[in-house]
């Protein structure tokens, strides 16, 4: 009786898991087979890379890749530096206005740049940055979430380590660089993975502020490429879709545990 209920559960869990993988499996099927097999499932269907070659020829995906990589690196580098400095100040300095400032930082956790598209567009336009990669990155550069995570990490650094570094003659920056940053490694990795996935996948804001091949990230490029009015073949669109998600998917498969733990830390805050 008990054993039966266990095997039923195992069966149900597997059925759900296979169902869950179906959309992804299907996109791979369609991307790697000639278009006449898009909805015909025949195990003997020939494999092909034609769809990828066609997508690559029909739209400047190389440039989109480059744009996304530049965007993601710019955002991450900016976020890490800015959040490290701010978190250090919040965690280790007592100064006038600390609580108020921290409260102002937390406002961004509640009202994210994603919903302030109308006014942020005005700001970016006033700065004369429309249709550039920095325009996509700037609203996200000061990450309240990053500041919050790093502040918590820095607060748990034992005082003895700080004192020891001071005795050795380290300056404020020296202490930050040699004590706090190395001890924050796991937080940096968690924050970095979440940030990269978020900005690799982000769509609405880049769609609004970009308008040319030179600044469009992959997600926007894919949307432009796959729009129904372009009449591109379905199999070619799935190939482009697979290309868009492949780097993150691959990274996830390689570093599963890191990803899951990072997303969890990010969610819990």
């Amino acid at each position, binding site marked *: 009786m008990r054993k039966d209920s266990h095997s039923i*559960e*195992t069966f149900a*869990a*597997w059925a759900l*898991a*296979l169902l*869950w*993988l179906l*959309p992804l499996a*299907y*996109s791979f099927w*369609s991307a790697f087979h000639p278009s006449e097999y898009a*909805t015909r499932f025949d195990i003997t269907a020939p494999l092909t890379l034609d769809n990828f070659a066609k997508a690559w020829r029909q739209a400047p995906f190389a440039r989109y890749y480059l744009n996304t990589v530049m965007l993601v690196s710019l955002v991450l580098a900016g976020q890490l530096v*800015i959040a490290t*400095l*701010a978190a250090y*100040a*919040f965690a280790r*300095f*007592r*100064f*006038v206005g*600390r609580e108020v400032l921290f409260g102002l*930082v937390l*406002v*961004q*956790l509640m*009202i994210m740049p994603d*919903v*302030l*598209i*109308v*006014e*942020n*567009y*005005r*700001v970016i336009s006033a700065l004369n940055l429309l249709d550039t990669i920095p325009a996509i990155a700037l*609203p996200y*550069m*000061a990450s*309240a979430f990053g*500041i919050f995570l790093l502040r918590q990490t820095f607060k748990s650094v034992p005082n003895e380590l700080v004192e020891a570094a001071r005795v050795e003659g380290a300056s*404020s920056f020296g202490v930050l660089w040699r004590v706090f940053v190395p001890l924050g490694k796991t937080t940096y990795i968690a924050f970095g993975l979440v940030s990269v996935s978020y900005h690799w*996948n982000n*769509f*609405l804001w880049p769609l609004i502020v970009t308008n040319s091949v030179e600044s469009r990230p992959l997600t926007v490029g894919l*949307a432009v490429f796959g729009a129904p009015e372009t009449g591109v073949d*379905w199999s070619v669109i799935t190939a482009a*879709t697979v290309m*868009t*998600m492949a780097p*993150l*998917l691959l990274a*996830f498969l390689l570093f*599963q545990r890191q990803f*899951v733990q990072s*997303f*969890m830390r990010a*969610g*819990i805050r």
Partner: protein
Amino acid sequence: MVAAVMSATEPKAARRRNWAVSVNAWLLLLPAIVLLATFTHYPILATLYHSFFSLGRSGPAEFIGLDNYRYMLDDDVFWQVLRNNFIFALATVPTSIALALLMAVWVDKKIVGRSFLRLAFFTPTVLPMIAVANIWLFFYTPDYGLLDQFLKSLGFSGHNWLGDPSTVMTCLAVMVVWKEAGFFMIFYLAALQSIPPELKEAASVEGASRWYFFRRVTFPLLMPTTLFISINALINSFKLVDQLVIMTKGGPNNASSLLLYYIYEVAFNFWDTTYAATLTVTLISILAAVALTKFVYLDRRIHYQ
């Protein structure tokens, strides 16, 4: 006399030191403050400010008080997208939570292929919404799409899933549940792993059934996690609109449009930025209300009980 001089100089030195510390701290915070002020605080205030002005397409923008808000309250589309948003939240939040809990309970046990199951459930989380929308769009394509092909093989006729106001929301909700459930699963999994195993042993000694144990022990212990996930899912349902751009453009006839998507349309298709600001004020108020509930209810009551 000497003592008096010393006590007068000491606070001065201390004050100077404090001042130096403050300056240091403010300098460290400067980049963050400038960017947050430019892209979060100023836009919030500017949104509110612009919502009181006319667009000024012919001539300068004029202060018109609450006219934009009056217009909003008379705007049928506004009410429809707001209703859609709440229906969408009601459809996706409980479903993805229930599924997430089920998944977490399964992969928490010693089950055959546990790591494969975890992988399968979590993978949709790391995919771009825009790629997901592309894949699912093809599922729902009339006649040629996978869903119709499957139904046809069972003898049903084709259906325009995304073109029919009565099915479009369900189709989008199914896709979002698929994308989000695995993400919520990991929070339940972490919570399940923190439940002391002695509880389970004690319950099995008492002869309690698994279902009874789940209902009376596990589920109540997971309550903070459930509330936490509900609020996050609720916020997401107001933020996630990427799929609409690809799949329906809010159609047919605004049947699938959500508040943020409507803001996007009003601002960047109709270029009515002051009305878009008015709509944004509504969205910000909703998000602030949710965040305050979270703060009061979750952070205070649940964690410290």
